[in-house]
């Protein structure tokens, strides 16, 4: 029994060395991880910026359009709302892989940096989902908060920024964290546009070593550890933000 176990360990060690250490193949994973994290981080930032702006425009429309005086302001908010809606419909109505291919081969065909294309593609995609998350957060804040801000003399944008968004952010944090985790894993599709991200790196090692289990499991474990780490991090942030609720 003991000898079989030690035999297994020896085999495991040999396989591990053959697959990851020989020819420095672990570098595929290391570099792939870098690509995955770069795309996740920057597309998340881009998605947050797009998402918050779209959410504010949409929520402003939904909350105010019926009480506004006819005029240029009302026309403007109606137009921006319509544009935002088209954006949401198109992005949420088509597959991310397809959007990436279109960015790669049609819209950004002259751009050489594929990581940049992936960031823009994934970021614009994430923005649509983050926008709806933030909009629900903004709509859930009692209108009295808005009135209190305005009655003190804050303008619309200041009230949003100082009073509504901090509360909305706290409310949507769990959903936002979920979106972030989805984003991290969804970047795996950038293999389609010939990027060597973490998943693709695992695939390459399978092709070089004719061993599927170990590289793929290694990739899975790396994703899992990252997701668990971020979940833990968000938990801390949530507890800190909740300190005002005792």
């Amino acid at each position: 029994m003991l000898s079989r176990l030690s035999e297994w360990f020896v085999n495991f060690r040999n396989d591990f060395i053959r697959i990851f250490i020989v020819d420095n193949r672990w570098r595929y994973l290391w570099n792939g991880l870098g690509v995955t994290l770069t795309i996740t981080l920057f597309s998340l930032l881009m998605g947050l910026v797009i998402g918050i702006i779209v959410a504010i425009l949409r929520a402003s429309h939904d909350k105010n359009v019926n009480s506004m005086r006819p005029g240029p302001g009302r026309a403007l908010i109606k137009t921006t709302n319509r544009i935002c809606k088209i954006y949401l419909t198109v992005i949420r109505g088509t597959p991310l892989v397809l959007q990436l291919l279109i960015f790669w081969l049609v819209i950004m065909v002259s751009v050489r940096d594929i990581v940049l294309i992936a960031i823009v593609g994934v970021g614009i995609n994430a923005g649509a989902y983050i926008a709806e998350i933030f909009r629900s957060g903004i709509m859930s804040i009692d209108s009295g908060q808005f009135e209190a801000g305005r009655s003190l003399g804050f303008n619309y944008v200041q009230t949003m920024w100082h009073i509504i968004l901090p509360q909305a952010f706290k409310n949507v944090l769990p959903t936002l964290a979920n979106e972030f985790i989805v984003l991290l894993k969804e970047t795996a599709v950038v293999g389609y546009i010939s990027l060597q991200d973490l998943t693709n790196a695992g695939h390459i090692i399978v092709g070089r070593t004719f061993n599927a289990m170990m590289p793929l499991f290694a990739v899975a474990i790396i994703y899992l550890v990252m997701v668990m780490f971020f979940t833990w991090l968000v938990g801390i942030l949530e507890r800190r933000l909740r300190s005002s609720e005792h």
Partner: protein
Amino acid sequence: MSTDVLIETVNLKKYFQKGEIKALDGINSQVHRGEVVVVVGPSGSGKSTFLRCLNLLEIPTEGTISFEGVGITNPKTNINIHRQKMGMVFQHFNLFPHMTVLKNMTIAPMKLLGKSKEEANRKAFELLERIGLSDRANAYPSQLSGGQKQRVAIIRALCMNPDVMLFDEPTSSLDPEMVGEVLDVMKQLAKDGMTMVVVTHEMGFAREVGTRVFFMDYGKIVEENSPEELFTSPKSERLKSFLAKVI
């Protein structure tokens, strides 16, 4: 009493649902500096809408409002500047739950009046001292009782040094035993000479503190008089039957 007119409304109308509901149906009124105007009337009579129109939380359908001689209903007027001079207190307090009491009170003076943190804090503590809550400066609103919340809401508005304070049923969502502490703060404020417009169901307060009382019904000011006159010798049938129910 000075005759300096602080707020004037002319033929103020507010319709909801495309004119089906006439919340305000032609209000002509004046509020003079130093006055405490109390607005009473049955629910749905337009009292709150009237008050909320004064700082344009509701945009009037028709008519004009001038504040300190400026036509604030003119779309070209920057209402944000004038709102800084009109403190407002709400039925549901509307403190900012994600900020401490101190931050609630100092954010507007710091961001809007350009006051330093020290200046804003000094003013805030001075006011907290006056209502006996200086030990709760770092508490969050959820840790306060209803009466404490409303007192903080009042002094939050005072931190902006307003020229008029608007009260929208400030005691209506309080437990009965907490109404007194809020009314006391308001009485003190009136005594200090603050111009106030108060929508309330507290007839005792109207009598004791009010310099003038508006009785509203169906979007109109039906009667307007000194509290003694209005409460002891009502002229209209509607006021008579209203007083019979509430007193």
